[in-house]
């Protein structure tokens, strides 16, 4: 069974076993506008919860991507680097950013579930 959670920085995280897949939410892409650049963390590097783990840029501005949990980067989605517009097209599915082997499963408990995030996103955009 997989579990999907959301961060206040508008990342989603799907946990399967000890591997977490992380991307940015549809709401985030709507705020950013057309994404034209994506930078991912290095494979094999260790990232800390709430630390920066990538960058996305729209035509307007650059924004950091944060990791909602700590872990080791085990896989990267090169296709979004090659064609960043994929992030706007399918942000919460095929346009994932990176996969982590997570360090501490309890960090998931600090994140929001879908309903909580939807309310949070709605409030933060008004």
């Amino acid at each position, binding site marked *: 069974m997989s579990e999907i959670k959301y961060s206040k920085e508008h990342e989603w995280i799907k946990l399967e076993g000890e591997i977490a897949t992380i991307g940015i939410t549809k709401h985030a892409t709507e705020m950013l*506008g057309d994404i*034209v650049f994506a930078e991912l963390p290095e494979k094999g590097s260790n990232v800390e919860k709430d630390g920066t783990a990538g960058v996305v*840029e*729209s*035509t*307007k501005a650059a924004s950091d991507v944060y990791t909602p949990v700590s872990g080791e980067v085990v896989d990267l989605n090169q296709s979004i680097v090659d064609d*960043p*517009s994929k992030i706007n097209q399918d942000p919460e599915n095929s346009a994932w950013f990176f996969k982590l082997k997570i360090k501490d499963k309890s960090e998931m408990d600090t994140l929001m579930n879908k309903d909580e995030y939807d309310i949070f996103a709605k409030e933060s955009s008004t």
Partner: protein
Amino acid sequence: MDTKKTSLYQLHQDSKAKFVEFAGYQMPIQYAEGIVEEHRYTRNHSGIFDVSHMGQLFIYGQEDLVDDLERIFPLDLKNLKLNHSKYSFLMSDNAGIYDDLIITKIKDGFLIILNAACKENDYKILKELLNDKYKMILDEERSLIAIQGPKSVEILKSVIQGVENLNFMSGNWFTLDDHNIYVTRSGYTGEDGFEVSLTNEFADRFTRRLIDKGAKLIGLGARDTLRLEAGLCLYGHELSKDKTPVEANLKWAISKERILKGNFIGSDIITKQLNHGVNKIRVGIKPEGRIIAREKTKIYNESNSEIGEITSGTFGPSVNGPVAMGYVKNKFSKKDTKIFLEVRGKKHPATICGLPFYKKSYVKGVN
């Protein structure tokens, strides 16, 4: 102070605009389809830009006014024909740029289009320089609508017959539904197009008519990517009080005739820079790969010395890659010079390149 709204505010809202405050106005940064799609629509079809925040300064006078304005602008205004336009600058004594502008000879005087953020200050400076001798109206009763892109001529002529006969950088008065409209063939996107000055009360109705004919509203976001691909300067970025037209690589806009005679504000510095060169100069910059170097990004040479700074940088949808402009020390300004851009602490390779990034298709002559 409350932000101002243009006459098209309701139309922007109806078209699902996202607004930003720009120069004291609530302006649309983009609409529902987004910047990249708006950019492409302008390049391939026809985009409408609300530029009503820009200043429309009418100055009325005859030969005296021409003489007085020639003491201010580096232009051969005596030979500027009726309804013809020139790009120019309002400069300080040191040739620093207070504003870049378009000046058009109209019956009874001149019409000067000014940047929104500069217009009040320009008005004050000009009033003082002209010793309050002439009637000057910074007209808030008129809106300014640009229509840009290859289909614009077809669309606009179906609403205002005769505009198709205008040459690039010239204009004329037209009448539509008893409204006096001044149309020039000009713009700031690198595309063929027009700028339409009309009364505020008619602006909304007129613009909806253009939309009915197939043109789409385009926000400031795409206006920026379009002008940057076209290699055009934006005041507050490429142009400012501490840069001269020669440094901005805009010497083409200074009349050769006037340089020989001098006697305009800033002419000493301009002449000196034309004869002896400048320390820094504006260039086009093409980053390698997809990295975007934004304003204030530092520029280094191959031996790691800082040689300049980016003034505008974004992703160019028609170029399908990053584009930038900036100032570098003159000796590094040659085309194909290898440089490095420091983005988020890392140095990325880039090349000095010619401008524009995207080739323009202005209509030069139709007659």
